[in-house]
Structure formats: C-alpha cells, structure tokens
C-alpha cells in the first residue's frame, strides 16, 4: 500500500487511497467525502419524497374518481387494491430504492451519481449483489429508524428516549470515527463509497510546432525545475489564460536569466515545456526522477 502511494501525483491527501486491481495495477481512488455522501443521501431522500408525493397525487386523483363510481358500504375491492399498492410502494421506497440502483451498472443511487460517487468493494475484487444487499439492509437502522425517531419526537420521551437517542447516534455518527468514512453497512458488507469521475482525453502537448531551434535550453537551465513544476506549466498551457501565461513566463525567465520579447510568452512556454519534459523523461528512462525543484 505505501509503495503504491508513490503513484499519487502531488501531495497525497487524507482521502486518497490506492487500490490494487487483480492485474496488479495500482489505481488511485478518492474516498467520497462525508459531505458529499450526506448530500447524496439527502438528494435520494428528496427523490423518494417527491416520488411519494407524485404517487399520492396520482393515487388520490384516480382513487377519488373510483370512489364516486362505486358507492357501496362494503370495502370497495378497487379501493382496497389501491391501498395494497400504496403499502407495497411505501415498502419498496424504503427498502427497494437504494437496492435497485446500487445493483445497476453504475452501482450508485441517483443522488450518488449526481455527486460523482459510487459503491465499490473494499478489497479490490468484484462488488457482489450480496454486498449491496447487506449494506442496504443496515441502512434501515442508520437512516430510517433515526429519521422516524426524530420525526416522531422520540427524544422527548425521558430516560428511555435519551438512551435510544445515544444508541441511534452511534449508528448515525459511525462514519466520523473511521478514516474511510465507512458507515455500519459498509463495514458489514465490505464496501466503501469512492469518487467516480470520468476524464476526457486532452490534446497531446508536443503536437505544437517544434521550436527547439529558436529556443535552445542548456542543461543548467533545465535543471532548475522538476516534475511538479512541469505539470503546473502543463496546466497553465492547457488553460491558456494570457495573464497566467505572462506571469509564468516572467517567473521562468527570471529564474533562468533570460530576457523575453513581448508577445512571445506562449511560444517560449511551449518550447520550454517540450524541452523540460524531454529532459525529465530521458532522466526517467534511466531511473532518475526529480519530484520538484527542491529535490
């Protein structure tokens, strides 16, 4: 694990993890932040609530019309049918919603998907249906029972209410007491929630016209910077903000003692980037890496 952490570029953050795939490849993962997960849960609960309201409106609308049609004293079988649907719908909203979406190909509920999260197996293996089921059954004591407890005003019920409150808080606050923000369901199921963002493939950098004849850099001039500075420069070039380009060009020319004509910043930076990268990459091929300008 610690050796694999070398593949994280820049400073490893608190939420960075390394996962080793069965092929033996170390993949960086970022554990979902507690804020994002709470937000995803709130979104999901909102979706469920909206779904329930829509369902009630539709049901109420059709139900009222049906009541008008059949006006008998007995329990109307149609009305009864609607109540059965209602009970099953409530049941599915509570237990089925999370289960259904997390078993899908994105392994994430709509709320998680919107916030760029997904469920994954902690050991790097396959996420199985049993894991998803286990983590969502535990959700009941972690989310729904506390929710009903508070909605029902259970905390005002004296010593028993207080005990129940402490008890419930153990589950609710569980993610705050471990470094991977696991909730009880994650512990039981062997899962965790990680960020799952897609990245676009950007243009290759060295397709720009080759200016190695106009700008020639010596060994000493290229030795002042390392990989970190190279990647900062890459970001600046990709973003292509004139002000930033000017500032960076000024900083580099000051450092290597050059004078630069006005308006040549981009050309200069592209040439410097290509030369520095070629320099550092040829070092890499011989096993020499220079992490930043201090090393």
């Amino acid at each position, binding site marked *: 694990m610690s050796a694999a952490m070398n593949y994280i570029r820049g400073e490893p953050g608190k939420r960075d993890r390394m996962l080793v795939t069965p092929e033996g490849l170390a993949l960086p993962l970022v554990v979902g932040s507690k804020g994002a997960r709470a937000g995803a849960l709130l979104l999901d609960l909102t979706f469920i609530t909206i779904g329930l309201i829509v369902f009630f409106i539709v049901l109420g609308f059709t139900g009222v019309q049906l009541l008008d049609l059949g006006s008998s004293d007995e329990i109307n079988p149609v009305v009864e049918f609607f109540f059965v649907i209602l009970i099953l719908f409530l049941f599915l909203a509570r237990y089925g919603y999370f289960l259904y979406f997390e078993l899908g190909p994105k392994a994430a509920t709509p709320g998680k998907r919107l916030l760029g999260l997904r469920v994954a197996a902690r050991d790097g293996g396959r996420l199985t249906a049993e894991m998803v089921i*286990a983590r969502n059954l535990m959700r009941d004591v972690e989310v729904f029972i506390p929710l009903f407890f508070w909605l029902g005003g259970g905390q005002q019920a004296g010593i028993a209410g207080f005990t129940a409150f402490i008890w419930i808080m153990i589950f609710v606050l569980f993610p705050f007491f471990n470094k991977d923000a696991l909730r009880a369901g994650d512990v039981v199921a062997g899962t965790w929630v990680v960020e799952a963002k897609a*990245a676009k493939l950007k243009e290759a950098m060295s397709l720009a016209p080759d200016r190695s004849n106009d700008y020639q850099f010596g060994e000493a001039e290229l030795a002042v910077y390392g990989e970190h500075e190279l990647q900062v420069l890459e970001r600046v070039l990709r973003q292509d903000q004139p002000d930033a380009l000017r500032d960076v060009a000024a900083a580099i020319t000051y450092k290597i003692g050059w004078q630069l004509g006005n308006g040549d910043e981009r050309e200069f930076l592209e040439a410097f980037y290509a030369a520095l*990268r070629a320099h550092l990459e040829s070092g890499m091929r011989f096993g020499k890496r220079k992490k930043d300008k201090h090393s």
Partner: protein
Amino acid sequence: MALSLFRSNEITPPADIEKASLRSDKFRLEREVDWQRLEQIVTALEKGRPGRISDDDLLELPVLYRKTASSLAVARETSLDAATLDYLEALVRRAWFQIYGPRTGLFGWLRSFFAGGWSQSVRDIWLDICIAFAVMVAGTVVGWLLVARDPDWYYSLMPAELAGGRVPGAPREVLLESLGHDGGGEGLTLFAASLFSHNTGVTIMYFALGFAFGVPTLLLLLYFMATIGAILWVFFDAGLGWEFVGWLSIHGTTELGAILLGSAAGLHIGRTMAFPGNRSILAAMQDSGVRAAQVMMGCTIMMIIAGLIEGYGRQLITDTTARFAIGGFMLAVWLAYFILVRRLRERDA
C-alpha cells in the same frame, strides 16, 4: 470543437504521430485509438445499454482493458503528461468498475439464490440459529412463568392495543371469538400486505441491530417471545390451548421461522464482530455480512408468504386441525428446503 462531437461515434486515428516531438507523446498517440475504443464500451456499459456494443468490441473488451492498464503502467514510468495520466487512471478505474462490478442483475442473482445460495447460507449460520432458537424458547418460558405467577405481568408485557380483549380471566367466548373470523373475504389483501410490510420491517430491524454484538437483537427477541408465552398462558388457562396454538401455527411456523432466521443473521454479524477469529475484524465482518444478507433476503420472502397465509389462510380457515396441517406442512417445506437443497455448483468467486 466539431471533431470531438463527432468522436462519440467514430474514432479517428491521430493524423500525424511522427509530428510529435516527444517520445512519450508518440507512445500516447499510437495507443489512443484503443483507449477511446475502451472508453466507448465502458460508457455504453455505464449507461446500461450493452446492446450498443458491437460483437467485435465486446470480444475485445478484456484485451482492450489489459492494453489500457498496461499503457497506464508504462506511461507512469515514461511520461510526465499529467492530463494523459489522469485520463488513463480515470478510464482504467471506470473499466475496472465495469469488469469487476456487480455482474448479475437482480434476477440472475435471485435464480442462484433460490437454487441453493439461500439454503447454503442458512446452513452456514446453524450455530446462531441454535442460539436464537434457545433464546426464543427461553423467552416463551419466561413469559409463561411470569404470567402464571402473577397475571398482572401480562399487562406489563403486552401493549394494550395488541391485547384487545385477550386478557387473563377473560371469558372463554371472547377468547374463542378472537381466534375465529367474522366471515367474509373483504379487506384480506390489504391485511396481508400490511402484515408483510410491518413484519419485514421488524425483521430487518432485528437483523440490523445485531451489529451491536448481537445484544439488542437477543433482548428484543426475548421480549417478543415473552409476549407469546404470556398470551399462550392466557389461552391455556381458559382451556383453549389447542385452538390457540393452531391459530398461531398456521402462519407462525413461517413467520416465527423468518424472525428466527433474521435474528440469527443479526447475531451472526454481532458474534463475528466480537470474535473475528484469525482474520482482521473487517474481513471477518464482510464474510458474515454477505452471508447474513442472503439469509435476510430469504426472510423477506418468508414474510411475504407468512403475510399471505396470515391474511387469507387464517381468516378463511377456522378449523383448528386444518390450521395445524397447513402450519405443519409449511414447517416441513422450510426444513426440507434448508436441509436438502444443495448448491448445484460453486459460483465463480
């Protein structure tokens, strides 16, 4: 850029690999067609539309995945292009999620579940089932003895709204009436559905509370069975023991069985947490959690059946012998299923 809009359908190979001045960029340009092909497949999989993937692409998916993974490994050692590394890491991660993601959908999983996964996991937690069963018996005995000694205990054990007219010393007719049904079949579906929803919720709670070393599960189970013991005493005291047991057993063998299994599953998790054995606690929890999840899915199914029997069967069948026959039959079915159904073949792990 118009080209990037186009790219979602057709991958255009990079025009001038030779123009790139850096060796690492040449490496990248030579391979990026494969990467983008993998990206298309992964995107289709993520959107749940595997039908859009051509047969050729699907056959090559493992190759493309390994190629891209090895590209990433090489790029990490030879290239300093952060954007490419980010792209490759994200792509390999997405592909990894798809390739090692949940492979069976809900229905495929259900099939293997019924064909032995369920009974296997029930057999695996036999010790917890024995413990939970002992607690259930103890709870019943305690409830019985408490009320037999002092009938006032009945009112402390049984919530008033559940007791109805069924209290110690109630006239025999009132008790007998509570076991029958006032006739008619209306409202039974509703009754069955609400029973199922409520009972399953309770079982899931029993299970989930097992997380705290199983203690709350056992306490709840003890209390629940004590109420059954108490009400048993009331009916036996009135000379209606046989009728009451029949009334209870028609759905009780299924429902109490589900409660037994749910509690045992919760206990299994709690016990693993307290005694993880030689493995790390997280690894041990995961093993037992996955096993318990299967048992719990089974409990939900048992609760559906119990709800149907309780909602329809108990209300429509009032003959005690018939009630016993159905209850006994269900018990035999469950026992036979759990003991006899073996998994046909081990699923690939």
